[in-house]
């Protein structure tokens, strides 16, 4: 069964450093998303992406964040200058279309020290 994959599974970085989280969505899906989950809290939406552009973003997704689909398979989330409060699980998701189930990857645990 096709699935969303994410790398790395765990990333430790120092405050102020840049990180890139990588995702490979399901191959025939057209809509891509990033969510995050701070430990013990609910899953929060960050950004959605379709047709090579951002279609929606939350207030969390400020100028420090960017997304890119550099090729036909990868979808990346970049945090330019990490802060302690960026520590969280980051989930990538994809869906075949609007109003269809979003399939989530296993997540990348980001720890900012």
């Amino acid at each position, binding site marked *: 069964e096709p699935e969303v994959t994410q790398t790395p599974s765990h990333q430790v970085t120092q405050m102020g450093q840049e990180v890139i989280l990588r995702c490979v969505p399901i191959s025939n899906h057209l809509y891509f998303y990033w969510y995050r989950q701070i430990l013990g809290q609910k*899953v*929060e939406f960050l950004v959605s992406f379709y047709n090579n552009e951002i279609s929606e973003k939350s207030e969390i997704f400020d100028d420090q964040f960017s997304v890119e689909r550099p090729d036909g398979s990868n979808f990346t989330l970049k945090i330019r200058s990490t802060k302690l409060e960026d520590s969280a699980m980051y989930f990538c998701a994809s869906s075949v279309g609007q109003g269809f189930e*979003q399939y989530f990857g296993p997540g990348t645990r980001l720890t900012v020290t």
Partner: protein
Amino acid sequence: GESVGLHLPTLSVQEGDNSIINCAYSNSASDYFIWYKQESGKGPQFIIDIRSNMDKRQGQRVTVLLNKTVKHLSLQIAATQPGDSAVYFCAAQRNSWGKLQFGAGTQVVVTP
């Protein structure tokens, strides 16, 4: 403001019993709802979904009920098994578009 919430943080259920997890949403424009299961250290796993033109949908051992009048949905798990132990989230989508808004999660603990 807009919110999606769950009524109980933890639900303890005996193996073989039925589980009912509740969720309330506030935005009347929400028209697509999904239940996810999240096991420790893993991403949310799709269980079942329902659109606002339905009030009930059944899957394998799971049933979702939607009451649009009171903006409430529930997930029923029949014959709960130890493998059902996880955190369950409801999520809502507005106008069948874009982001999912998640509730806080209910931890289901299955006891022998």
